[in-house]
């Protein structure tokens, strides 16, 4: 990695990594302070700060949290040398540890991981930690954006008094229908097997199934904002609705059919509620389709087939036609990933974070997972399945 220490306009030192600025070239310490102040959670009991650099973030964090333990991750020895050369002894305290590895950090729910965005951009997409750090940051940003709405929804949803799910075993095949572009082709397959499988669909693809007269067993709703409630308006669907405790409350409130509330891991209110009521906790993964995956797993299915779960796009369409989420892929940095058919497809940071979740999840799940998206991103431990293989699988299972 290429490290470059420069003098900023105000006389302080500033730093570039791989030609990307880590701090401002005008007022580096001030800007680092500003960021730490904006993001630090005073209720956390332990902090992990990514990036040591010139120590500006660490110094401010120390001011704010005093004696609480802080672990600072640095990327390589050179970075540590730069830090040492430009700092005295102020950081040599019992509560501060500097680390080149993060394996020994104990993950607890009161731990806050602080990831300044410039580090992610500077280490570049090929760095082994890049995708993980980006996933953490995206989740934090989306949580920050939605936290007030989430709490309001949680309180309103709890008031409905709906039951949650019960873990059991099912021998039927579950089909998870998301709204990636491949669903354009594979929705016809679903039509043929709909009587023999249990179909769970995410809100954005509900109207696509309606268009083909496919009736799902359940629809999954996870979005806290009111932006996507149109997914559930003007539909004839009155089957089961599975909704996350923090999902927009208007959807369950207006739903004409059975409702099941889902409690998620990592959200203190739902964790507490689930413990009191002895309800299973779901890993959310950050998107409605990852919630649906966890739901299906918790409902006890042994086999799952993914439809429209592309996690990328071969053309510039991000979703299937008629999906309420379809948009042109924005002109942001696109990444290449390998598709199920061996070709390369585009993806973006958000979808890549979900791919990483699936990679981890599909290696630990007991379910057999199949993916129908030929032009979808290849998920570890997941088999690509063609149309005829799907019919064989379904027939073998059904009879």
């Amino acid at each position, binding site marked *: 990695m290429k490290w470059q220490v420069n003098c900023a*306009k105000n006389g302080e030192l500033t730093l570039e990594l791989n*030609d*990307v*600025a*880590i*701090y*401002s*070239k*005008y007022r580096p310490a001030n*800007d680092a302070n*500003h*960021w730490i102040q*904006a*993001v630090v959670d005073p209720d956390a009991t332990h902090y992990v700060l990514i990036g040591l650099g010139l120590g500006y973030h660490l110094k401010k964090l120390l001011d704010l949290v005093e004696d609480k333990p802080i672990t600072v991750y640095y990327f390589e020895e050179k970075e540590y040398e730069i830090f040492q050369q430009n700092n005295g002894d102020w950081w040599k305290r019992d509560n501060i540890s500097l680390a080149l590895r993060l394996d020994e950090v104990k993950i607890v729910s009161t731990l806050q991981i602080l990831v300044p*965005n*410039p580090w992610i*951009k500077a280490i570049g997409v090929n760095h082994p930690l890049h995708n993980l750090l980006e996933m953490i*940051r995206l989740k934090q*940003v989306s949580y920050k954006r939605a936290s007030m709405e989430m709490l309001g929804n949680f309180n309103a949803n709890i008031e409905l008094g709906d039951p949650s799910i019960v873990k059991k075993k099912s021998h039927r095949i579950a089909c998870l229908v998301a709204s990636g572009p491949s669903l354009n082709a594979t929705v016809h397959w679903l039509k043929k097997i709909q009587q023999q499988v249990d179909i769970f669909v995410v809100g954005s693809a509900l109207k696509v199934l309606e268009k083909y007269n496919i009736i799902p067993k359940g629809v999954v709703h996870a979005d806290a904002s009111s932006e996507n409630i149109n997914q559930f308006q003007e539909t004839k669907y009155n089957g089961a609705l599975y909704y996350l405790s923090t999902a927009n409350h208007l959807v369950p409130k207006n739903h004409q059919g059975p409702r099941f509330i889902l409690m998620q891991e990592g959200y203190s209110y739902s964790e507490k509620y689930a413990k009191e009521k002895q309800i299973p906790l779901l890993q959310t993964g950050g998107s409605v389709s990852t919630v649906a995956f966890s739901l299906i797993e918790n409902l006890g299915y042994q086999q799952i087939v993914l439809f429209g779960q592309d996690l990328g796009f071969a053309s510039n369409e991000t979703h299937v036609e008629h999906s309420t989420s379809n948009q042109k892929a924005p002109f942001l*940095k696109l990444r290449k990933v390998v598709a199920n058919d061996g070709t390369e497809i585009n993806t973006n940071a958000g979808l890549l974070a979900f791919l990483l979740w699936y990679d981890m999840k599909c290696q630990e799940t007991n379910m057999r997972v199949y993916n129908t998206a030929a032009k979808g991103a290849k998920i570890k431990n997941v088999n690509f399945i063609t149309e005829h293989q799907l019919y064989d699988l379904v027939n073998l299972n059904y009879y």
Partner: protein
Amino acid sequence: MNEINDVLEDYNNYLECVPKGTVQIAEQLREDNMQEAFSAIKDFSEGVLWLSQASDFLKCNGAHVELDILKIQEFLVQVNEGLEKQDYVLVADMFEYEIAPFFKEVKSAKGIHQ
């Protein structure tokens, strides 16, 4: 004449708002509010394009306008380069410490009758 006066008024009002807006862009970038920042940068690009067209129009109609269009284009190129390599610290610096002070110095346009 009314049209010229309307454009002149809009031009001066817009010019007055630019420094505050550019500092807000820098703050959004530094606080990781990327969606808001990108949307504001798009608005800024469209806004300065309009300023440049309004400046030409006013000059053609005899108004006194001080706006260094070449300098603005230079800023936009640098902002684009920063966005291209996702160097958002650089882009935030540009908006707060280069673009905002530049627009603060630009004097209001004056019509021929003023």
